[in-house]
Structures are given as C-alpha cells and as structure tokens.
C-alpha cells in the first residue's frame, strides 16, 4: 500500500492533509509510546511496544493523514512518567499516550491525561482501578487487568484443588490490586488465604519471602507480581525446592517473555491467563513473524500485541471523527466496535474497559514444544462477556 510507506517519510498528499488539518491538531496525529525501556518490564513492553506501534501505523490505511511516533522511558517511576506526559502534551503536542506498564505510573498519567483532555491507551498496566474508581473519559484500558487475571487463573486453580493460598505481592498499585482481586476469587470459591508478604518493586532476593511462604504450608503460593520479579521468584523457588516439597506456584501475571527467560524446564506446568497468544490463528501467526523480524527475533507479548490493536482502533476512530481531540476520540472508540487481526471482534465499554476473549494457558513440557516460542497449550477460552469484571462492580463514576 502506498500510504504505508509515506507515514514516516512525512509526505502526505497535500489535498488529504488540508482536509484533515481542519480538526487534527497541528495537522499531525502524534502517538507517544511511554514504557519501561531499561528495567524489569522492558521485555514485556519496552522496545517491542515501539515496534508494535510502528507496525500498527504502517498497516493502517491513513489516506494521507500524518502520523508521528515518539517514545520514552518512564523508569517505572510515577514522577518521571507524569513529567514526561506533561511535557509531551504541553510542548511536543502529543495526542495520545500508549502502553505504560507499571500501574503506579499509569495511574499518574491517567490523571494528567484527564487534566489535559488528551487520550490514554493502557496496554502494559494491570490495575483494574483504571476502569474502576480511577476511570476517566480519556482512558481506555486495552489488553488485560488484574480482575481478569484473578478471575481466569484464580478460578481455575481453586477448582482443581488449590484451595489454600499464600501471596507474595509486589508492593505497589498493581501487586496490591492483583492480590485483592485474586483473594476475592479464592474466597468466593471456598478457598482460604493463609497469609501474604509484600516485596519492593524490582526485588533481587526473594529468599525471605519464599521461606515465609514455605512455612505457611499453603498449597498454592500466588505470585502477585510481574516481569523480572516473577521470574526471579520462580527461579529462586526452584532453588528452595518449593515445588518438589508439594507446594505449587501460581504466577498470576506471566508473559511470553517471562517463559522465554525462564526456559520450559523451570516454567513447565504453570497455569495462567493471557488475552493474546501468537499461535492462535493464521493472522496472529503472520503478525508474530513480522513482529519478530523487526524485534530481533523476539515474539510479541500480549502487551505489545495490545499496543498494536489499541493504536489500530484509535486511528480508526480518528479517521471516523476526522479529528484528534482526546476526549472525543475516546468517546468514538467506545462507540465503534473493535475489530483487528490480533484480538478479534470486541467492544469498548463506557468505563474504558476493552472487551475481548481471554485464554487460560498451560506451559508445555520441553518435550511438547516444537519450535521457538512454542510454549503454551490453550486449556480454555473465556468469552469476552465473562473475562472481565461486570460493569456494575467496578465502581466507576462514569457508569450510572
């Protein structure tokens, strides 16, 4: 397609551009990918999210609309993230911020975006508060959230006999939300929680937390953390012989990149929930191969796929609206049904929650894996209307 190549060359057709300029600020739609580029979540989002964003823009028939891409590293710190966001909105005239793993940073940007009347598409962050009490008319939470993880993974584990839990939780918005949501699911299904311990973000040494978990004699040790924290905990649990001792680990949020980092040897048998896996159908496989080619061989995580999908829907709304006013675009995105090659057909709810199916997956044994990144068996598909928290339970003020 002609327009695919023209985006970054910044050579839109003059006629089309003048049409669009009427309502598109500066005549350019500026997309900012804000992610963890250097630390424990950089494999989940990071550079891969930028690749996904670039692909989404290239694949979209922009018909001369000029789209630009920026990216920055928020270092997982809310103060850094919010000051970059502020500067992007004020000085660089960014129209939409995408990705933002780390819920604490996402909540800060949620606030700034609302204040500035721009748009915020969350893919990396997990806290279900983004569509609950912190929901905003300027934010859409795309890929997944803590309620959906708890509902998918927690349910499955309790129903297969894992009825006593001990939580090892990352001590910030995300971990606490994930722990809260999972605990609710465990209790609802008649299980019990024997205890919990909180660790700082980006911890290196989990030994004291793991020993406490071991001493609790809980059947399931729930890891309410993510990325480097989860893989560290799983590796160190293996050293303590926790799984051999009869306890099981439940990674409540695990990404493809984590499994790749752990290796199937250590990760086999883990059960968790995702909303995207590259080996679902021909379209996802095609996307994953193109993505891997542009991302030094690494396959997309659900966060990176979510960035692609969210930007596609955003551009669709901008085109339909012929404008890029943040609040209006988000409203339009909620109005239009979503449809893209990665997440399939879905909708965006009034509270900003994007709905699509979720998959309960189990990590394959090394003998079952046929090639690179062939890691998951899909155990169950949770339909879109059951995968996420019901609208009425979130406490979002936009829902009346």
């Amino acid at each position, binding site marked *: 397609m002609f327009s695919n190549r023209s985006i970054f060359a910044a050579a839109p057709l003059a006629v089309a551009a003048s049409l669009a300029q009427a309502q598109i600020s500066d005549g350019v739609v500026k997309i900012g990918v804000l992610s963890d*580029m*250097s630390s424990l979540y950089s494999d989940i989002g990071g550079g891969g999210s930028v690749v996904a964003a670039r692909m989404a823009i290239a694949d979209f028939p922009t018909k001369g609309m000029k789209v630009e891409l920026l990216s*920055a*590293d928020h270092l997982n*710190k*809310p*103060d*850094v993230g*919010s*000051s*970059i966001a*502020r*500067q992007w909105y*004020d*000085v660089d005239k960014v129209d939409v911020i995408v990705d933002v793993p780390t*819920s*604490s940073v996402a*909540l*800060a940007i949620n*606030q700034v975006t609302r204040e500035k009347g721009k748009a915020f598409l969350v893919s990396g962050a997990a806290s279900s508060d983004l569509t609950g009490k912190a929901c905003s008319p300027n934010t859409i939470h795309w890929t997944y959230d803590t309620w959906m993880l708890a509902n998918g993974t927690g349910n499955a584990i309790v129903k297969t006999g894992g009825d006593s839990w001990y939580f090892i939780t990352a*001590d*910030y*918005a995300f971990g606490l939300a994930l722990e809260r949501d999972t605990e609710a699911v465990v209790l609802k299904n008649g299980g019990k929680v024997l205890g919990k311990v909180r660790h*700082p*973000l980006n911890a290196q040494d989990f030994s004291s937390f793991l020993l406490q978990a071991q001493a609790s004699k809980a059947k399931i040790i729930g890891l309410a953390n993510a990325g480097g924290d989860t893989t560290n905990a799983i590796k160190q649990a293996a050293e303590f012989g926790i799984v051999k001792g009869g306890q099981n680990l439940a990674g409540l949020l695990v990404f493809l990149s984590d499994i790749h980092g752990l290796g199937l040897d250590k990760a086999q048998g883990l059960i968790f929930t995702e909303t995207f896996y590259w080996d679902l159908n021909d379209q996802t496989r095609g996307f994953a191969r193109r993505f891997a080619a542009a991302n030094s061989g690494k396959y997309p995580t659900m966060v990176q796929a979510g960035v692609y999908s969210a930007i596609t829907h955003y551009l669709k709304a901008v085109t339909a609206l012929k404008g890029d006013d943040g609040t209006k675009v988000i409203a339009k995105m909620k109005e239009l049904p979503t449809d893209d090659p990665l997440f399939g057909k879905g909708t965006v709810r009034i509270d900003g929650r994007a709905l699509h199916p979720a998959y309960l997956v189990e990590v394959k044994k090394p003998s079952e894996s046929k090639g690179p990144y062939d890691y998951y068996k899909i155990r169950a598909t949770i339909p879109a209307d059951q995968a996420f928290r019901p609208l009425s339970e979130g406490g979002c003020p936009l829902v009346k």
Partner: protein
Amino acid sequence: MSAVHELAPRAGGFAHQRIAAAVMIAFFALAPLVAYPVFLMKVMCFALFACAFNLLIGYGGLLSFGHAMFLGTAGYASAHAAKVWGFPPEFAILFGTACSALLGLVTGLLAIRRQGIYFAMITLALAQMVYFFYLQAPFTGGEDGIQAVPRGKLFGLLDLDSVWAMYALVFAVFVGGFLLIHRAVHSPFGQVLKAIRENEARALSLGYDVNRYKLLAYVLSATLAGLAGATKVLVFELASLTDAHWTMSGEVVLMVLLGGLGTVFGPVVGALIIISMENYLAQIGSWVTVVQGVIFVICVLTFRRGVIGELGRLIGKPL
C-alpha cells in the same frame, strides 16, 4: 577546600553580586517566555533545594548525605495536607515546610554531635530510616506516591491550575528562599558559621556556642529544603519516593559541586545544568547517569571550584 574559602564573600563590596542576582532573577522571570514553564519550575525547586544544601556544606562545612529526607518529608506532608485534609496551597506548603523543620531539629540534635564522615553517615542512616518509613507507611501510597494532589487556589483567589499563577508562586518562593539564604550567609550568624567551618575548636574557645550555631544552620537548611519539596509537589501534583530516596541526596551534592561549593549562585547553576541534562537527554535513557558521572569526573579533575567558583576566580570576585 581552602581555595573555596578564600573566595568566601567578605562584608562590603557586593555590587557584582547584586548584578549577578539581578541577572538571575531576570533570567527566571523572562525564561518562561521561551522555555517550558514546568521545566523551569522544576529547576527553581531544585535550585532552592541545592541552595539550602549549600548553606550547610558551603558555609557550615557539614556534608549531609541525607537531605532527601527533608525534600521528601515536606512533599508527603504537604501532599497529604492538600489532598486529604483539604488545606489551601499556602498552608499545605507551610505545613510541609514545618514538618521538615521539625525533622531537621530532631535529626540535627543527633547528627551535629559528630563531624566529617561520621556526620555524613549519621545523616544517611537517618534518611534511610525515613525512606523506609515512607515506603511502608500507608498514607504515602508506597511506590505509587500520593497522586492527584490538588493545587487549589492561593489565598482563595489565585487559581494555581493556571500555569502562570503556579509559575509566579514558585518564582516568589525561590527568590524569597534565595534571598533569605543570601542574608543569612552575610549576617553575623553566617560569619560565625564560617568561623566554625574553618576551625571549630577556635570558635569554641572564642566563646561561641558551636553546637547551637550548627544546629541552627542545620534546621534552616532542612526548612528551606522542605520548602523546595513542598513547592515541587504542588507543581507536579505528585509526591513520590524518588524525592526521599538516597540518590536524591547524592544528586544535590552533585548539583552543588558542579555549580560551585560555597558560592552564592553555584547551586542555582548546578541545578540548572543537572535538571537540563535529565530533561533534554532523557531520550538516551540510562546513559544520562553515565554522562552525569563523566561530567562529575571532569569537574573534579579540571575545575574543582565548580562553574561559578571558576568564574568568580576569573573575575577576581566571589560570586
């Protein structure tokens, strides 16, 4: 260090300093017309923080390695006051500053009993205790910090959501704090402080209550650092752990050394350089730290008096 001491301002003959102060004030008054106001507000907050730190090290000879605790404490206190208790901004800032002053008094009573590296280590240890308290205390929100702090209306009139009103407030706070430090340094109190820095035993033998002067300088420094922290929270509408972390204590040392230890304008220039680097080099990610390290090494090796210290030597007058 002795080279710096020779440059310490003597009483009388401040004309060049008045000119320099006028230039600086004019710079911050006019800069927002071309530069990004939020960035400049950040620079001014850190400049005040660095000036407060410089008061202690540059004039009192006390190297505190825990100044982040004052920046952080005032930040959390004012954020909590503004958000949860609904304080108007002026009282939130005052409350935050008062909390830092109090913390300064308590930690100061402990720390000033020792000199040199022991003093630095005690302040570091105290700051780490304070940091872990903020990490665990429920009201600070841990890693999330206190978010969405309302700026409110200053004196019930001026809506601080307007960037210019906010800028005017930060400008006033910065200039006020700067002039206060300037005044303190050139007062008899400042002279005694310098005497203690030069030779504590001699100052004691002359009949000065050394500990009282040191404590006063320490509390004054803590208070002004707190003022900077409380103002910064209103600018960013966010209080976070970064402000209380020990790296922040290190960063302020870097600012002061780079700008010029024991100079009046050095900390301001140092803050401007460091914050600009963090802001405009953000694209290169973690390399910023490497660049900062290299600049620090170059500074120590080639211009040990810092930018303003060297400039002052060049024109033969202390700046």
